[in-house]
């Protein structure tokens, strides 16, 4: 009996499964890089997905971005006012928004909105055998479904990050303007005083990395959804949890790397 067990599992069932899953996830990610540059290209599908992503998250991101900027400025004001330093507000807010808040807020909203959608959509195609149907009709479902969606999120999340940054700054400007009557131009001049090229570059990198993460995690969870409608819900849910977790890990890594570059 014990011999049989050692044959079935290398360590224990749980540990074995963990590594098998890790291996299959790694294979899934590598397959993306293997297939992304090979023709045929699904241009139409990529554009459709970009549109869907932008369109789906646009209202929520506008609202959240604006309120984040407004509230953050409002809440920071009293502490700065204690030192009579409210004139630093624009640059403080800009640092917070551009370096940290915009990429993170965008990514978390997109993980919830776009990631779950991708997980559910591909998951339901898996359990209703639509993916198998593509395969048996000699069409590569990975290329059509996964590559196009991952490209779309990788492309769109940085753009949405810029947009979030912009509306958040508008929120901040609203607060500053009502209190100090600062003009639009001088607000932005002050705001960008302390922002370097590296900061913008690092935020865009975050956007690209988060976008890739959201896309590939949603696709992976959907692609491996197990039988039944229950599997679709699970895939959607797991996409959100997993991509949010990875986004936080990546956030820490990118910040560390940026800081070490800055020296």
């Amino acid at each position, binding site marked *: 009996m014990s011999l049989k067990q050692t044959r079935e599992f290398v360590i224990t069932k749980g540990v074995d499964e963990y590594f098998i899953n890790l291996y299959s996830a790694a294979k899934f990610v590598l397959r993306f890089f293997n297939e992304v540059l090979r023709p*045929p290209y699904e241009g139409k599908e990529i554009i459709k997905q970009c549109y869907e992503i932008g369109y789906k998250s646009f209202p929520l991101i506008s609202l959240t971005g604006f309120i984040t900027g407004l509230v953050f400025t409002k809440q920071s004001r009293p502490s700065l006012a204690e030192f009579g330093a409210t004139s630093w507000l624009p640059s403080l807010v800009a640092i917070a928004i551009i370096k940290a808040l915009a990429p993170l807020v965008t990514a978390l909203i997109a993980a919830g909105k776009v990631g779950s959608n991708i997980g559910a*959509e591909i998951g339901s*195609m898996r359990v*209703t*055998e*639509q993916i*198998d*149907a*593509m*395969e*048996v*009709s*000699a*069409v*590569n479902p990975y290329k*059509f479904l996964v590559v196009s969606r991952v490209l779309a999120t990788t492309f769109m999340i940085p753009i949405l990050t810029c947009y979030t940054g912009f509306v958040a700054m508008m929120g901040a400007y609203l607060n500053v303007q009502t209190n100090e009557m600062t003009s639009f131009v001088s607000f932005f001049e002050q705001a960008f005083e302390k922002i370097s090229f590296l900061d913008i570059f690092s935020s865009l990198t975050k956007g690209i990395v988060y976008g890739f993460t959201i896309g590939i995690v949603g696709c992976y969870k959907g692609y491996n959804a197990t039988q039944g409608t229950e599997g679709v819900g699970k895939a959607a849910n797991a996409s959100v949890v997993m991509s949010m977790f990875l986004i936080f890990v990546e956030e820490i890594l990118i910040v560390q790397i940026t800081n070490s570059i800055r020296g």
Partner: protein
Amino acid sequence: MENQPHVIDYNQPVITVRDLYKSFGNNHVLKGVDLDLYKGENVVVLGRSGTGKSVLIKIISGLLKQDKGTANVLGEEVAKLGGKQLQELRLKIGFSFQNSALYDSMTVRENLEFPLVRNQRQLKRKEINESVERVLNAVGLSQTINQMPSELSGGQRKRIGIARTLILRPEIMLYDEPTAGLDPITCIEINNLMNRVQETFKTSSIIITHDLTCAKATGDRVAMLLEGKFIKQGTFDEVFNSDDERIKSFYNYNFIK
């Protein structure tokens, strides 16, 4: 197109399955399956739910891998084919899924075009449209061309699913329960459709079903799958004149119901 009676060439096997085994964990589904399909022939595979009928044709089309044994299709061993060769073989196999598996984010037209435009990139718009109309006509559903799959009835979905596989002009058709869950009249329509496909497209087919009317109407040969093996093969009458209790009960069950 004028229908000619179909001709079966018993010297030309298109599918040869030998000693096929497949398990999922402790669930031993196929336990030594042998099956031959000859050119122009319709073989009906009968068997109760969960006996592994779908698993068998998924192995034949390369969607699943067997644990042991061989599945040879058009001279190629499916499990040994990789990427490009497997794709080429699949162009010659039409797979009609148990639940139709229509792409539900696409219209009927887009569903039908999907495999065609991706496999024959040189086609002009006009040729694509002609192909779409031809297969839609073949299944008698020209009027649904701009509808979404969710707007179709179960029987219509089945027929669109069949049309979608026909558009690539396959040599082999695998039908997974084409008549399940349909009313008797629609069943007869689908049976007739499968026979018409056999005659006009010169296909060889494996038809999976629980439905004996369908088996009788479409099968040149019937094979009975039970407990992971084919326990009996032959014409419909040969199989059901058997004294085997298990076959009798399957027959009685079908007609008492």
